[in-house]
């Protein structure tokens, strides 16, 4: 504890804005916000060097609750905005946030291609297996037999498996966290941000209003029993065969992140001349 007197370091409070969250009491997103701010404090990058980008949904409110630069974008386009920002301002730490509906349904295509491009940004998805903001419709990760008034008897549709998709599409870091484990989640988020390339963290975050049974997740989550791997085949087998409640780093790859192409070697006039007919 030699550095107890070092008051120049950042605390989680430095990353929380004065805006009060309006999530439902008991919502997992509160603690994800806490984990994100703890992780940023741990990394020691001041708020003005970090941008938090989101789409639409309950969890996408997060940028306003931080003191970082924020962009609350359009539905499903958080990764598109985050990608553009990172490409234009590579010196910024870019954290893209959202929910399962925003990221896997409306934004599903962006998700796959963000993994493929492998820009050095971090994507946190607060997955509650439901569209909470619009009153409880089934989302891509909803279980096929989830019975409710809007899909009586369940949708019968196979659940989307975001971690497998991320791995197959080229994400360089794949992890699963749980909002009920805020300190563990903070460590995973910090690790994800540090890891080069596209880092994807799926955070199980209960919706206590439309999926109250998810309060029981705390009794079934467990830490990954095996060490992280950089072997995609091994990671794929692990992710495909786990129970969906396995927490930790499931894949940490070594693929080089996207790098900007060198500056143009020809002038505009030379390029125009090449196109002249």
């Amino acid at each position, binding site marked *: *504890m030699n550095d107890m007197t070092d008051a120049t370091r950042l605390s*989680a409070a430095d990353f929380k804005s004065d805006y009060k969250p309006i999530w439902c009491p008991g919502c997992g997103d509160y603690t994800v916000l806490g984990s994100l701010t703890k992780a940023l404090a741990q990394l020691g990058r001041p708020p003005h060097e970090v941008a938090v980008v989101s789409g639409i949904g309950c969890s996408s409110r997060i940028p306003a609750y931080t003191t970082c630069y924020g962009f609350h974008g359009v539905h499903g386009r958080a990764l598109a905005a985050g990608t553009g920002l990172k490409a234009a301002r590579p010196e910024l730490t870019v954290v893209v946030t959202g929910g399962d509906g925003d990221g896997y349904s409306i934004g599903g295509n962006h998700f796959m291609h963000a993994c493929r491009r492998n820009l050095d940004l971090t994507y946190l998805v607060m997955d509650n297996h439901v569209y909470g903001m619009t009153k409880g419709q089934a989302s891509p990760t909803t279980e096929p037999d989830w019975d409710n008034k809007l899909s009586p008897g369940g949708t019968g549709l196979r659940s989307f498996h975001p971690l497998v998709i991320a791995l197959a599409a080229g994400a360089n870091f794949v992890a699963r966290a749980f909002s009920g484990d805020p300190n563990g989640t903070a460590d995973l988020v910090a690790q994800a941000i540090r890891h080069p390339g596209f880092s994807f963290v799926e955070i199980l975050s209960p919706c206590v209003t439309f999926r109250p049974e998810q309060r029981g997740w705390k*009794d079934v989550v467990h830490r990954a029993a095996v060490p992280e791997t950089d072997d995609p085949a091994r990671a794929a087998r692990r992710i495909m065969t786990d129970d969906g409640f396995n927490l930790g780093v499931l894949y940490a790859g070594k693929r080089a992140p996207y790098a900007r192409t060198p500056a143009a070697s020809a002038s505009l006039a030379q390029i125009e001349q090449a196109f002249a007919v």
Partner: protein
Amino acid sequence: MTRARFGGGGARPAPRSLNELMGQALTMEREAVARYTELADMMETHNNLDVAALFRKMAGYEQLHVEQILADMGWAADVVVPRQSGVWGTPESPEVVPIEDMHYLMHPWHALQAALSAEQRAEAFFAEMAGTAADEAVRQAAEEMRREEAEHVALVLEWLAKVPQPDSDWSVDPDPPRHMD
């Protein structure tokens, strides 16, 4: 309203110095202040003002603890304690009330139950620290902290005795947010 067991419950490392113990204590109290404040804000947003006031009061008590630790140790108010993984053996620091235990219709009785559990966890934490500390100064400080937490436990129990236990249908909302007919 019980604490999630995920994340440990196993043996915690004993602090090696007074600084380390009090750093942990400061972190715990600060996190308790932050959480109680967060819960008070949450309940105000959802117009549960009785519970909001109670959480605000708890935040005030925990803040007194923070100030006492800073004064005792001669630390500045903005001193930063490096975060250590695995210190608590629980998902959050022991004195933090879990967000997942919140409900927008909860009564002061529920809030006090949650606070009681948090204070009991804090007392147990310092009892464990006092029991495992190798250094006598650390042991004495941990024991002092344990006594203070025990006083908080007694205080919350006194409050609880004055608050009626809600009926079993306390969470029934005639105009629920999930009503979809």
